[in-house]
């Protein structure tokens, strides 16, 4: 039943990550720290899911600075937004058919 749903997005943590980043304007990025605070995930858990999304080309991350002053920013790519739209459409179709 869940076959049409993109498995990269269709996991609670990654769905929340993508939905949160999609609430930003298209060209903006969010710091790792704030994303972690908003989603209440552990750093290790968040990093694992971010890597999966990054590997799929759905988000980009960029770290600037070094040591304690370093800052990692995460942004949804155009492909990521498109994937979320497709996922939302598939979800709507599935729920409508249930």
């Amino acid at each position: 039943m869940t076959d049409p749903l993109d498995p990269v997005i269709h996991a609670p943590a990654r769905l929340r990550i993508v939905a949160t980043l999609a609430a930003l304007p298209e060209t903006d990025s969010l710091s790792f720290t704030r994303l972690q605070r908003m989603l209440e995930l552990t750093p290790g858990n968040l990093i694992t899911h971010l890597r999966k999304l990054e590997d799929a080309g759905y988000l980009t991350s960029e770290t600037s600075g070094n040591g304690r002053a370093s800052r990692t920013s995460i942004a949804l790519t155009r492909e990521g937004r498109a994937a979320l739209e497709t996922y939302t459409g598939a979800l709507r179709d599935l729920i409508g058919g249930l």
Partner: protein
Amino acid sequence: MHGIGDIDQTASADDGDELDPREAARLLARTGGDARRQFSLSPPRVSAFMAAVILAGYVVLWLSTRGQHPYQGPSGAAVAAIYSAVAVAVAVSVMVYRRATAGISGPSVRQQRVEGTAILLSYLGSPLIQGAMHHYGAGPTIVYGVIPAAGPLIIVGTTVLGVAASKADWPQFAAALAVVVAGIVALFVGPSAAWLAAGIGVFVGVAGYAAANGPYRR
């Protein structure tokens, strides 16, 4: 520059529990709504609070000038009350802005700063006109009544109209238009009633904007 892959962190996470489509839809809607609310520069509750504070300030000004013949202008206590209301509004706005934009970077944040600067600068317009009127000998009706009541609404409201139009933010456009119209009304209803007209106009604009943003909330 590097990214997530370079962060030295012990990572362990699985894909979590099986996610039912209905549950996924609920999670998507709730998370998106939460994020929009946290990123919002004008959360409905804060906007409603600001609308009430501003209305209270204008009502105090109106009460302090009602029945004055000839018109002298608001009392010192009333002016202190409105300055307190403005201070509260500014403090709340700064707090909300900082909280909403924490950790966000990109063109939209820079754009918001430019828009905020333009709006803040437009607040200078009315006191400058007021000063010029006083300089040229205009009476208290104009200098301490009509201009300070109507001027900020027309000048700041028009600036916000432009900002809203450039972003196609139609609820904000409608709110700013209500404020500008109230400012125009305030020009013609007399110096004391001008404060009440201004207060009602700002209240309707800000509270209306809060109500329009309401559907985004969970």
